[in-house]
């Protein structure tokens, strides 16, 4: 009688351990997926910054500075275009993207340290 009870108790404990570990496993998968999204966002930010910089340095470029929506309409974020400290002919483009968050309760805005960020400095084209 005692042995049967202890055997059933052990099986119950193992089931409980498995059930307790499942959320941890799910959380690990979400963290991994969030990391993949952040890496993808970083590469996207570099690509956007390069394209925006190329547009900004074209000879005769006039009008408002290029916007993120011009090169990457699906992404949300901010763009800063201005002269670089290294020279007046240098244009500095900084892109910050807002990555999608899959972890519950996590919000990453463009100013966050986790947000994908890219800086490209290019020289103005001669006219």
């Amino acid at each position, binding site marked *: 009688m005692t042995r049967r009870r202890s*055997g059933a108790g052990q099986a119950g404990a193992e089931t409980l351990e498995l059930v307790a570990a499942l959320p941890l*496993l799910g959380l690990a998968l979400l963290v991994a997926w969030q990391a993949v999204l952040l*890496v993808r966002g970083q590469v996207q930010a570099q690509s956007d910054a390069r394209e925006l910089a190329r547009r900004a340095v074209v000879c005769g470029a006039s009008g408002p500075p290029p916007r993120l929506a011009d090169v990457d309409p699906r992404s949300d974020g901010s763009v800063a275009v201005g002269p670089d400290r*290294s020279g007046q002919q240098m244009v500095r483009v900084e892109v910050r993207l807002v990555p999608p968050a899959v972890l519950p309760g996590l919000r990453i805005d463009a100013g966050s340290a986790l947000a994908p960020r890219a800086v*490209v400095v290019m020289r103005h084209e001669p006219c």
Partner: protein
Amino acid sequence: MLRRRRSAARGAAALLVSLLTGTLATGAMGAVDVAAAAASESRAENAADAVAHAVAGLLAADADREHLSIAVQAGAFCEDQPVDVLPAEPACRRALGTASATALANRAVLVHLTVGPDPRDLHPQRGPGRLSTMVLVAVPRGLPILPARCPPAPGSGPDLCWAEAWSAAVEAG
């Protein structure tokens, strides 16, 4: 007997938690390294493009570009390596300075710069022709986990520490 079973159950639980923790830690470290590696590759490509574009743009409007064009057509390349260098050419000096400054502004290191003639213009009686620029830059990967120590300059150790990229620009016409 009962005590043995209980201790075995506790051992299994501890093993499961240890395995999960180890998997999480290893996965997190790997993810951070992969993220840093992917970002540095992209940054190196951007820096190489920016440097090649800057040098080509500078030379296109340089007052001494014709002298430089004739010199490189004669067989001497404008390079940052001590082989066939044209330091006396002001346009070459300016190109080297612009390349270094642009690489630095993009947080990269200029590894190699070559300004040479466009092969389409290599025929007699051509006179000054188009210039082609080739650039190789390196960007520190900044891997937070491995390798623990990196050489201070590219090319002096394992290249896990530095991401390299090259780019070229040829004048239109």
